[in-house]
């Protein structure tokens, strides 16, 4: 049976991830910081190390060395979530990304040539590695990367590499791994210790042992480690697909009482959320900002965006408008930003074209209007195929996007419908002689009827219970939009008013003025 070829893999290692995760979620303050697990120091930042805090020391020893040390208990679940967050952003670079806890991301490097089609394979793979490290930096992480053949070799080389970027030729994994300790191959410590006792203390020495002997003395783990040491790992990447929308948080260095520091913090968070969305080919159409107040309480803001985008600079204006209109009850100590509504970033252009100034101007004015008037005050109308005139359209968010298909009513019906529809039809009284209507009394004043055209019978919706749903807003706010209706509409030209839309209600037999052909 033919074995699968080992894939080219880019491994991105995040050294001291627990520490990095905590540090990126707070503004830099210069206070020594360490992560503690089981009462012992797991890792510490440069300030802590300079103060004498060592990994593996007890917390008491660390505090004795550095009284100012801030220590945070390790949270492996949060570390895994952070790894997935970065994986999301890396999706922009590779066809498949696999989080490999506790601190590595594996990227499929087989498509690296697409990044630089005119470059040699090595240059293209190194470019991919540099971009991955840059994305990690944008997301607030320091990383180092290695490109090699096979998941295991790439991961081991990244973990033990000296430089930020390491490139290993397709047949060079065994030679690169050879000087590394056997522990680098992911062996259990007791097996590594037994191998060490036998004088097998490097991956190269392990690679030279016959598989039969290893299987007998060290079981399947020993065989797997030896294969890894020979650079033999054909296992495919397990492609990861994100299931939740991105959210990022930041603890402020001190309580913020004005909008400027909040905007500063939100800019950082926006860059991170946008990078994660961009990796998935998504753009945010609505953001949620949560401001944690001191000492308690929260302020929540929903920020609608004119069009779905993963360009964080386009989020800034709407965010700024909402932020500056806010009256805070207390200082803010932490900020959280989440994308709560997203859409695939389509190839469709805004109707105004791709002029960035025009798009920015639109974003800006929509944000200002939404903040000041309320989001419900702005809409685009979408025709609805209903006979009931006041239900003839619905309000949808205005995006400026061109329609996917021609609106069914567009350009049809000529002037058959009035340009103005009254929110509440006004009762009018007919006056006449000999069964002929000669005038209508509107607002208490008799208007001579100059011409009448009609009737147009509109009736239906007998299946819906009367008064069930009411219009939520707009011209028919509070009006019944369901239930049977039976109306005979007339276009009536009234002296001094012009053409009016009047109907006789089949229910009560009365006449109502419903609109104007203005």
């Amino acid at each position, binding site marked *: 049976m033919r074995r699968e070829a080992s894939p080219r893999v880019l491994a991105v290692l995040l050294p001291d991830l627990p520490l990095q995760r905590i540090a990126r979620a707070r503004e830099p303050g210069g206070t020594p910081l360490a992560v503690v697990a089981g009462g012992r120091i797991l890792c510490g930042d440069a300030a802590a190390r300079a103060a004498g805090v060592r990994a593996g020391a007890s917390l008491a020893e660390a505090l004795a060395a550095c009284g100012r040390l801030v220590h945070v208990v390790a949270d492996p679940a949060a570390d895994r979530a952070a790894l997935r967050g970065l994986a999301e952003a890396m999706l922009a670079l590779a066809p498949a990304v696999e989080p490999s806890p506790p601190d590595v991301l594996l990227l499929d490097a087989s498509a690296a040539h697409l990044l630089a089609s005119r470059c040699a394979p090595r240059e293209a793979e190194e470019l991919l590695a540099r971009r991955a490290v840059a994305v990690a930096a944008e997301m607030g992480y320091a990383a180092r990367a290695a490109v090699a053949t096979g998941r295991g070799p790439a991961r081991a080389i990244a973990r033990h590499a000296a430089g930020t970027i390491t490139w290993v030729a397709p047949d060079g994994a065994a030679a690169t791994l050879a000087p590394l300790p056997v522990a680098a191959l992911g062996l259990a410590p007791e097996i590594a210790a037994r191998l060490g006792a036998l004088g097998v203390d490097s991956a190269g020495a392990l690679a030279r042992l016959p598989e039969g002997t290893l299987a007998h003395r060290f079981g399947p783990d020993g065989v797997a480690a030896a294969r890894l040491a020979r650079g033999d790992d054909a296992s495919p990447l397990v492609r990861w697909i994100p299931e939740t929308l991105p959210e990022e948080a930041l603890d402020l260095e001190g309580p913020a009482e004005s909008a400027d520091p909040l905007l500063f913090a939100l800019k950082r968070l926006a860059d991170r959320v946008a990078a994660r969305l961009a990796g998935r080919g998504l753009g945010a159409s609505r953001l949620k900002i949560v401001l944690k107040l001191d000492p308690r309480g929260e302020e929540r803001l929903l920020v609608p965006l004119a069009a779905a985008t993963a360009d964080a600079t386009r989020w800034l204006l709407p965010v700024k408008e909402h932020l500056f209109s806010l009256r805070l009850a207390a200082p803010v100590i932490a900020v959280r930003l989440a994308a709560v509504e997203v859409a695939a970033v389509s190839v469709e252009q805004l109707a105004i074209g791709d002029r960035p100034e025009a798009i*920015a101007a639109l974003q800006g004015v929509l944000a200002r209007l939404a*903040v000041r008037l309320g989001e419900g005050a702005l809409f685009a109308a*979408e025709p609805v195929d209903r006979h009931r*005139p006041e239900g003839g359209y619905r309000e949808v968010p205005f995006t400026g996007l061109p329609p996917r298909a021609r609106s069914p009513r567009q350009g049809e019906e000529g002037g058959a419908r009035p340009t*103005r529809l009254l929110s509440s039809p006004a009762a009018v009284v007919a006056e006449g002689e000999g069964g002929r209507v000669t005038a209508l009394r509107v607002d208490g004043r008799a208007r001579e009827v100059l011409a009448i055209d009609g009737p147009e019978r509109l009736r239906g919706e007998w299946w819906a219970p009367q008064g069930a749903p009411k219009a939520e807003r707009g*011209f028919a706010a509070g009006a019944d939009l369901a239930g049977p209706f039976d109306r005979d509409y007339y276009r009536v030209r009234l002296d001094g008013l012009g053409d009016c839309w009047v109907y006789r209600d089949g229910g009560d037999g009365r006449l109502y003025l419903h609109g*104007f052909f*203005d």
Partner: protein
Amino acid sequence: MPHSGKHLTLAHMREEIGRIERRPGRRGGTVACRLAAIDAALPGGGFPRGALSELSGGPASGKTAAALSLLAALDPEDLFAWVDGRGELYPPAAAARGVDLTRLLVVRPLLPAAGRRPPAREAPLRAALWACEALLASGAFAAVAMDVPVPRGIAGADAIARRLQAAAERGGTIGLWLTAPEGGLRFRVAVRLELATEAGRVVARRALLGPAAVPAGGGGRAA
């Protein structure tokens, strides 16, 4: 300087926001609405960009149809807005007149949603006028129709007029101010048309431009 990095970033962000807030390029000239009776009455045969024009008429005089015709005649990439202070614009009729509803932003500041708080701390009329100014000045909309029932004798009428004029000029926008002949605020505009229907046909007459901010008398139903 422990915070110099942050200050630099703030300065950079202000600059970036300033860049984003710069308005798109302005256009000049006039745009015909393709209604012969209206265009014939307009100097230059169309509504001027970067200025306010007033369409004055009764409730069924044809002023709304004229404004909709102008929106339908704009370039396919243009956006337009309608500040619907009365809440009477009927969008299906606009679509029937060739207006692309996806490019039409309707703003209804006077009608808070049922069960929703009224517009944030704003007197509805002031909010509507503020929306008019913001839309005119943004440069994002080629035309803004304003149907706002400003009552006679409103305080600061001159200032309102100046602000709207300046906003239209700044944004290069065609501003259409819809009024009723017997009521509502009038002020100096670039063009004022008085519309009426005679035997079912719209008749337009260019009116003399009056003094700045003339609050007209009258009551009844304004449209």
